[in-house]
């Protein structure tokens, strides 16, 4: 356990070291948020409701989508796939460490740092735009944060699952971007799942991606009862076991197949 704690600390230091670049990246997200502000302002110009949303609840949704960016990011999958493709995985296989736990420690450090910065961003919004961004109270916010730790695990396992494909195909870049565009959409990253067209709504409600954006936002907005939240946690754990099982199977098959020819 100590060695993974060391990985966590080093990854944390790395994240802190590149904080300016990180902040720059975070600010990029504000541009699309501004665009969303203008579009939804135009949509709500002559109406009070869109589905069940008021302008304020829609903007709260959009701001939270930016906040939850750290939950649905896909960089880990891409990095692991690169290591497999270039043969750098061999370095880890010869060390007395678990490659996946190593990455999980690094993933947690990176995400915790980003989460802290995004929480700061959220409170800045709260101070600057209290009319469009609602705060539901500290207890519900803490409930969201608790739920996000489970969502992060779903994201990590899904990323690994995609990365494992690098054992079987030459380059996952070809479908990685496409796949994560779909994931972002079905997670509710562009429009809330409950206002999507019928078929997509069904698909979105079935797949685990909703737990990365839509579900936590709905907890934040107080639209789920305690029973629904517990049900969500239960389904999340089902997906974690499901993904974990197939990931283990794929990973072992992949390592068996792996040839460290490098480039």
């Amino acid at each position: 356990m100590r060695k993974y704690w060391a990985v966590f600390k080093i990854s944390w230091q790395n994240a802190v070291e590149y904080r300016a670049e990180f902040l720059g990246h975070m600010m990029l997200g504000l541009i699309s948020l501004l665009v969303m502000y203008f579009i939804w302002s135009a949509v709500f110009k002559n109406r009070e409701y869109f589905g069940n949303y008021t302008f304020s609840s829609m903007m709260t949704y959009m701001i939270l989508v930016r906040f939850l960016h750290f939950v649905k990011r896909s960089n880990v999958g891409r990095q692991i796939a690169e290591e497999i493709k270039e043969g750098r995985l061999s370095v880890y296989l010869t060390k007395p460490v678990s490659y996946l736990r190593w990455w999980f420690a690094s993933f947690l450090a990176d995400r915790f740092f980003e989460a802290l910065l995004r929480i700061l961003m959220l409170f800045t919004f709260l101070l600057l735009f209290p009319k469009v961004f609602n705060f539901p109270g500290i207890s519900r916010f803490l409930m969201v944060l608790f739920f996000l730790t489970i969502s992060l695990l779903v994201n990590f396992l899904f990323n690994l699952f995609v990365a494992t494909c690098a054992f079987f195909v030459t380059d996952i870049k070809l479908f990685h971007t496409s796949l994560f565009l779909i994931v972002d959409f079905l997670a509710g990253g562009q429009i809330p799942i409950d206002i999507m067209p019928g078929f997509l709504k069904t698909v979105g409600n079935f797949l685990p991606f909703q737990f990365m954006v839509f579900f936590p936002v709905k907890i934040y907005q107080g639209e789920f009862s305690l029973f629904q939240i517990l049900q969500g946690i239960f389904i999340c754990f089902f997906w974690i076991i499901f993904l974990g099982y197939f990931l283990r199977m794929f990973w072992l098959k992949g390592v068996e197949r792996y040839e460290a020819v490098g480039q």
Partner: protein
Amino acid sequence: MLIGLAPIIWMVTTVIFLSVIFKGTKEIGGWSFWELLLLTGIQEIIYLASWTTFLGNLINFIYSVDSGKFDLTLLRPVNHRFFVSFGALDITSILSIVNSVVLVSLSLANLKFSFSPDRILLFLFGLIIAYLVIYLLSFILASFSLFWIKGENFIRWLMETLDFDRYPAEIYSDWFKVFLLTFLPILFLGYVPTGILLGKLPGYFIFFGILIVAWLYIVSTLIWKKGLKNYQSASI
């Protein structure tokens, strides 16, 4: 085949997004659903044409300044500005343009408006201006890497701001619209040519576009020359 998949998925999700928004309204900023799809398609054509011809080259140029490999370019007996901009073609984006052309055709088929030769001519001029504006903006930002080594973020910022051009400028406040037509003239990429084609904007916007291109060209040349003097081969 998979390379062209991401732009298709992006386009499909954009169309779904727009169709959801238009469930509750007939127009946004005075633009109908099909007019907005036409704008999306035209902007995407310009964007993909940029990737095919110069964006990848300019990003490589930024990395070459970072690594010091730009020295090798400077040693070549060529026009350096042209070489770093159009040195190689990225043909993987060409296939994706087909999706946009399909979207534009579909939108035009569903729109009821009369074509006039002068409007089509102005539209074609608008497309040329759009291409020149995105090129000159990208080139100016890429040239900043001659002053600040890690320059790739500038291009990323520009790409992100293109989102403003995916929707009709009528939804923005007046001052912001002026900003996007002058200081950061990205509305010339999709909004202006589409607006002219649909008869929503007067033809003199083309004249403004020419002035903007001339202004950007002067600025880009000044920055490029000053940047070359400043370049110190900061290899790592």
